[in-house]
């Protein structure tokens, strides 16, 4: 007669499987955490924390779950495309609100910050001016005031990028460009360019424009000292470093400062003539490529050529009309 025994009851078996599964997963999680923790810290460091309070109202719950669930970049992209449609319609309040939302959702892409700052500083005053009959019909004081107001908006916007990209030269560079292009304030531009040139990977042309801004704001001596110190550090074989241009600037400043020959930079091998007469160069600031000292970053091509400087005061009209053309087809 075989042994007959009642098998365990069903609930107990089910509970046992669940309990065993949970326990194994827990132990596995515990065992993996020394491996997981450092990797997760590394990954997390590249993902700025999401300020949910800022975006919750604007997005609705579904999108918020998408956001924290790993679809952050793509949601930001689509919000930016929506921003773009507001921008095409010259809708100031919505463009501004959307730009703030996009950068709150994903502050990582510099592209959003740079384009946002430019929309604010360059396009929005043009839209408002258009509503008032165009820049041509505005009294200079009103135009100046208008530009100043939006320049500040753009600068405040790009300033926020600084906390997410503390070592990105493009943040102060944008502020410097707005300072000179919109506020026509070389002293303020020089202040930002000083920040730019102190940063890693900043482009060679920034050094040259920095000196120019110093010069324009009446600090010839500082400009000269800066370029003198810079010149020997520039690589001779890199066209972007434009050593000949820097040398020409040095010679110009030596003339301007009327330095005695003994204090001047000795004649260089590359010079064909002693630089006592300054070469005439219109504006003198189309200084060549945007090549950075180290490498080029994923950069925006919104259309504002970073090296073209300074812009004519109305050049943004042309530029943005061109943008509109781009977008309208």
């Amino acid at each position, binding site marked *: 007669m075989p042994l007959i025994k009642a098998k365990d009851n069903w609930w107990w078996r089910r509970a046992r499987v669940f309990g065993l599964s949970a326990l194994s997963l827990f132990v*596995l999680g515990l065992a993996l955490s020394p491996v997981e923790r450092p990797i*997760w810290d590394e990954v997390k460091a590249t993902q700025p924390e999401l300020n949910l309070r800022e975006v919750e109202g604007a997005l609705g719950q579904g999108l918020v779950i998408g956001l924290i669930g790993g679809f952050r970049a*793509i949601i930001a*992209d689509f919000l930016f495309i929506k921003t773009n449609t507001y921008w095409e319609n010259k809708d100031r309040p919505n463009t501004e609100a959307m730009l703030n939302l996009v950068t709150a959702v994903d502050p990582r892409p510099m592209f959003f910050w740079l384009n946002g700052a430019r929309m604010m500083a360059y396009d929005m005053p043009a839209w408002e001016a258009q509503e008032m009959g165009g820049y041509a019909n505005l009294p200079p004081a009103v135009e100046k005031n208008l530009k100043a107001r939006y320049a500040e908006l753009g600068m405040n916007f790009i300033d926020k990028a600084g906390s997410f990209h503390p070592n990105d030269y493009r943040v102060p560079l944008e502020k410097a460009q707005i300072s000179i292009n919109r506020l026509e304030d070389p002293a303020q531009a020089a202040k930002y360019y000083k920040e730019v040139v102190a940063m890693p990977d900043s482009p060679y042309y920034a050094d040259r424009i920095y000196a120019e801004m110093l010069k324009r704001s009446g600090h010839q001596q500082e400009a000269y000292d800066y370029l003198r110190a810079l010149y020997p550090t520039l690589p001779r074989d890199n066209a972007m470093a434009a050593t000949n241009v820097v040398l020409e600037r040095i010679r110009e400043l030596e003339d301007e400062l009327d330095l005695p020959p003994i204090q001047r930079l000795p004649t260089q091998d590359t010079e064909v003539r002693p630089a006592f007469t300054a070469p005439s160069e219109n504006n003198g600031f189309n200084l060549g490529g945007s090549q950075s000292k180290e490498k080029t970053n994923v950069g925006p*091509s919104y259309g504002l050529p970073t090296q073209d400087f300074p812009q004519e005061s109305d050049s943004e009209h042309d530029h943005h009309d061109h943008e509109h053309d781009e977008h309208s087809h």
Partner: protein
Amino acid sequence: MSGGSLNRITTIARNTFLEALRQKFINVLVILAVALILSANFFRQFDFGSSELKFITDFGMGSILFFGSILSIVATAQLFFSEIENRTALTILAKPVYRWEFIAGKYLGIFALLTVFTMLMIGLLAGMLSWREGALMERYPDDFAEGRLVSYGGLFAYGVLELLRFGIIAAITMFIASFSNTNLYTVIVSFFVFVICQLQYVARDGWNDIGNPLLRGMVWVMALLFPNFQMFNVAELMIFPGEQTLAAASAWGIFGYGIVYIIAFNALAVLAFRGREI
């Protein structure tokens, strides 16, 4: 593992894979995903400069994650329950086939399907990026002064990690299917678990701020119970290694993490399936 086992597992896997290819739903999903990736062409109408590549990548990887997760869950549940409901599992398990062999075979068939899906999508995305990058390089040479921005090796390496994330989702679904009674229940619970795995980092990274010790303990346990899927969100680091890159050791770490969880959930599926009455 004996040769017989291997033979049975590969036979079941092959059959599962072929069956998957015949499922209308799966085909529709793949076609949709392909169409979405190709529609990234839409970004051309904007003048995003070299950032167009970021848009294409975000869009492509977003589509792959979205459709891949659905595929991992629905295909696994579907292929498992079609065997149970159509009684083919009955015929197979009435043969000298171990339950673990059945689970392993089914899983490998599904993993083969996910591999084909992921690599097809990544290949398409790579083609799309390469074509657009070539065009953009001509138009904006300054942005590409240092050469190409997209790392295609990184893209494929990321594809492997994404595949492992799908692999974990499929293994979780297999585990849930192994003890649940219906396809629908399995799909719903699996989606729920998937969302927990995607979001658990929110609670866990904030657990220090939780005052209530009981709640804190619960969050701690939850974080250890479920794998952290955000570990796999490294697309940007691997595809655009310009600004920030992922250390190779970390990429391998994520790879290992994925493999361990795939094995673990399949082992649990076997444990639960062993006691299942067919």
